[in-house]
């Protein structure tokens, strides 16, 4: 979380695209960069190898007026998906405000999806953050390919936590649901910091209360 500069009336939020190698994180950013009003974006900075694999991170700054009286700057980052670059992923996750986890819908990528999600949880834990504290949404990408798992299977594998999050069927190469998922995480993020979210929720009723057996019960059981 950054500090707000009240003089310039700016708020900055950092959103990180996380997921396994070649799942389409950079394609998401490239599509957003291509389609958003040029007045509302900066340059797309991509630190890639000659083979177009993300080496360090991709970075795209976006501006929006979404909070009355403030310029809101969203900084979109991707992490390198390749397993060996875990130190870089930890660096990019520093001060993260919101996340989009991009899963590859192909059957053969399921293990990599699960490993990457576990890696995300581990890397957040190193910053003493639980994934349940961070606003995030799920993208099931590459829905246009043939060899893909059904959405309910992906939900079972990746969205089976106590807190179910929003998920989107995405084709990042054509832009299907790319903006929808970005807007969803942005709204969750903004509402996290708004005053209304302070309203205390009613405590859930306890399912079962363990009762210590009385002395008389213990004695009768012993007999």
């Amino acid at each position, binding site marked *: *979380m*950054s*500090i*707000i*500069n*009240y*003089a*310039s009336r700016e*708020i*900055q939020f*950092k959103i990180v695209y996380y997921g396994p190698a070649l799942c389409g994180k950079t394609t998401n950013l490239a599509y*957003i960069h291509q*389609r*958003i*009003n040029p007045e*509302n974006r*900066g*340059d797309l*900075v991509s*630190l890639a190898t000659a083979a177009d694999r993300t080496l*360090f*991170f991709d*970075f795209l*700054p*976006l501006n*929006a*007026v*979404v*909070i*009355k*009286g*403030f310029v*809101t*700057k*969203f*900084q979109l*980052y991707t992490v390198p998906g390749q397993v060996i670059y875990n*130190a*870089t992923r930890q*660096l*990019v996750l*520093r*001060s*993260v405000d919101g996340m989009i986890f991009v899963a590859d819908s192909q059957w053969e990528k399921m293990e990599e999806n699960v490993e990457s999600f576990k890696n995300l949880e581990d890397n957040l834990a190193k910053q003493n953050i639980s994934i349940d504290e961070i606003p995030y949404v799920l993208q099931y990408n590459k829905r246009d390919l043939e060899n893909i798992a059904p959405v309910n299977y992906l939900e079972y594998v990746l969205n089976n936590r106590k807190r179910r999050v929003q998920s989107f069927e995405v084709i990042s190469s054509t*832009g299907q649901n*790319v*903006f929808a998922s*970005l*807007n969803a995480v*942005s*709204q969750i993020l*903004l*509402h*996290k*910091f*708004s*005053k*209304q*979210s*302070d309203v205390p929720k009613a405590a859930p009723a306890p399912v079962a209360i363990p009762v210590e057996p009385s002395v008389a019960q213990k004695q009768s059981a012993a007999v």
Partner: protein
Amino acid sequence: MNAIPCLTIEDVANLDGILGNFLTKAEAELTVVIDRGGNVISQFGDMTVMDVTIIAALAAGSFAATKELARRIGEVEFNALYHQGNGNHIFMNSVDDDTIMITVFGRRTTVGLVRFYSASTAQSVAALLKSLSNGGHGFSFDASDITATPVFADQ
């Protein structure tokens, strides 16, 4: 509700005073204070020459990337980094555990002068930021202040 740490107008004026004084003495073009996640906290100087947001993201990455290099020679991290160009250069130094200061300078000055004045400036900035974290102001807004329309539009 989660309050966002906030620099008031008075805090920004104090920070600008420190950074402005540094730029005058060091004869540098621009100085930016960022957190280690790459977010800009404050900036002072000629901002027309470059996109400060991108400089901040890359500088934070560069600083973190050399940490492993430092560890290999028995250091926790390098306190300062210098990138030398043909006409323009960047000097970065650590302010505290969460903050970095970036200075961009050209031919009018030398790295020695920038390095010399940046050390005391970093201490002043660290003291100011520490006072914020100890008794800092939090900022939050009403949900009604958030626009209902999609934040970003596909053109």
